[in-house]
């Protein structure tokens, strides 16, 4: 279903907020925000039943603009707040927006445990390989050899693959897209939000201002073009060797499995607790 920009703009943007938004020209965050809104539009959710939580960083500013129940939490901790919200009221649709540093550096512990815990949450991680808001320092997804304001002579550490980390940590649903594949983002987010269990959508995004500039990757157009050319679908990637996949971005659904949902299991705990009577 095509969702016109007109509709989401009218329905979901906070009319009392100042636009254009705070992000740099061509920033992928805006593309992801629009995709998220298209997914929510198609899910026909009431705005009151959606909670959007974010951490700190460029991505953290997203909830400010959107007319849901919005939480702008502390750096890396959005998932912990979301955990409390979801457990307290499982009827709410809770979406967590994070950046790569937010989700996998300072919030790395929360991220893997949220995946393991399997609450019915949707985590969207916008991965631009850099700390943008603080001025271009290296993040856990900055590639080996890349330059940043804190890896001036080239980065010496290996990068996380966020989606694969989520698969290993046990997330029920894991998918990846790039900001070039904007329609795919909203389809994956929709799938993630329909999924019963902890769902992760990683979106490879462009920070041409902090990351692209320091690594001769060009502007937003050049970076998106590169994402287009590097992208390979999950099924095509399955036929390639590891060497052939070097430098490619696998997009699509990486994991989709049914696991016990924490909130449902806790309902059973409540049942057992009330049956067993008072403990001493």
């Amino acid at each position, binding site marked *: 279903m*095509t969702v*016109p*920009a*007109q509709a*989401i*703009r009218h329905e979901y*943007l906070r009319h009392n907020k100042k*636009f*254009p*938004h705070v*992000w*740099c*020209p*061509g*920033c*992928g*965050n*805006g*593309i992801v*925000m*629009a*995709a998220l809104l*298209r997914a929510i539009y198609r899910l026909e959710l009431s705005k009151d039943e959606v909670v959007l939580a974010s951490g700190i960083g460029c991505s953290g500013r997203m909830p400010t603009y959107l007319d849901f129940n919005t939480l702008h939490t502390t750096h890396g901790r959005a998932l912990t707040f979301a955990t409390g919200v979801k457990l307290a009221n499982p009827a709410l649709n809770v979406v967590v927006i994070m950046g790569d540093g937010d989700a996998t550096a300072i919030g790395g512990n929360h991220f893997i445990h949220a995946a393991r815990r399997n609450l019915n949450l949707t985590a969207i991680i916008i991965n631009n390989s850099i700390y943008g808001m603080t001025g271009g320092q290296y993040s856990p997804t900055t590639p080996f050899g890349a330059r940043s304001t804190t890896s001036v002579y080239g980065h010496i550490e290996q990068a996380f693959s966020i989606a694969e980390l989520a698969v290993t940590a046990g997330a029920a649903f894991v998918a990846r*897209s790039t*900001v*070039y*594949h*904007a*329609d*795919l983002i909203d*389809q994956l987010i929709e799938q993630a939000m329909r999924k019963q269990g902890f769902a992760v959508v990683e979106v490879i995004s462009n920070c041409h201002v902090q990351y692209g500039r320091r690594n001769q990757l060009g*502007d*937003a*157009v050049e970076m*998106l*073009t590169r994402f287009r050319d590097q992208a390979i*679908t*999950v*099924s*095509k990637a399955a036929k390639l060797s590891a060497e052939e996949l070097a430098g490619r971005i696998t*997009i*699509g*659904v990486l994991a989709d499995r049914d696991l016990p949902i924490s909130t449902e299991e806790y309902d059973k705990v409540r049942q057992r607790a009330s049956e067993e009577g008072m403990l001493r």
Partner: protein
Amino acid sequence: MTADSHPSPVEPQQPDSNLSKANRKKRYDIAFYHDWCKACGLCMAFCPRQVIQADEHGKPLVTEPDACIGCRFCETHCPDFAITVSERQPRRRKDDV
């Protein structure tokens, strides 16, 4: 829809060549909110028909509206919600302006 069946914007599902009569061909209008536009250039760069040009401020300008195939790539990729692509409604009467 899975990633495999995802349509590429350069290969629209309904290319205009498939339509038998020119007068049944769908036409589109592209509206820009210039106050929200930051002139990032994404819409111009990726338009499969090169419909969008830059004006003197680098902001988008449609030179050939009839060439637009309605793929909405520009709309979905505008990070600033500044583009609306809408299907042009056919003129009901000859004197309709």
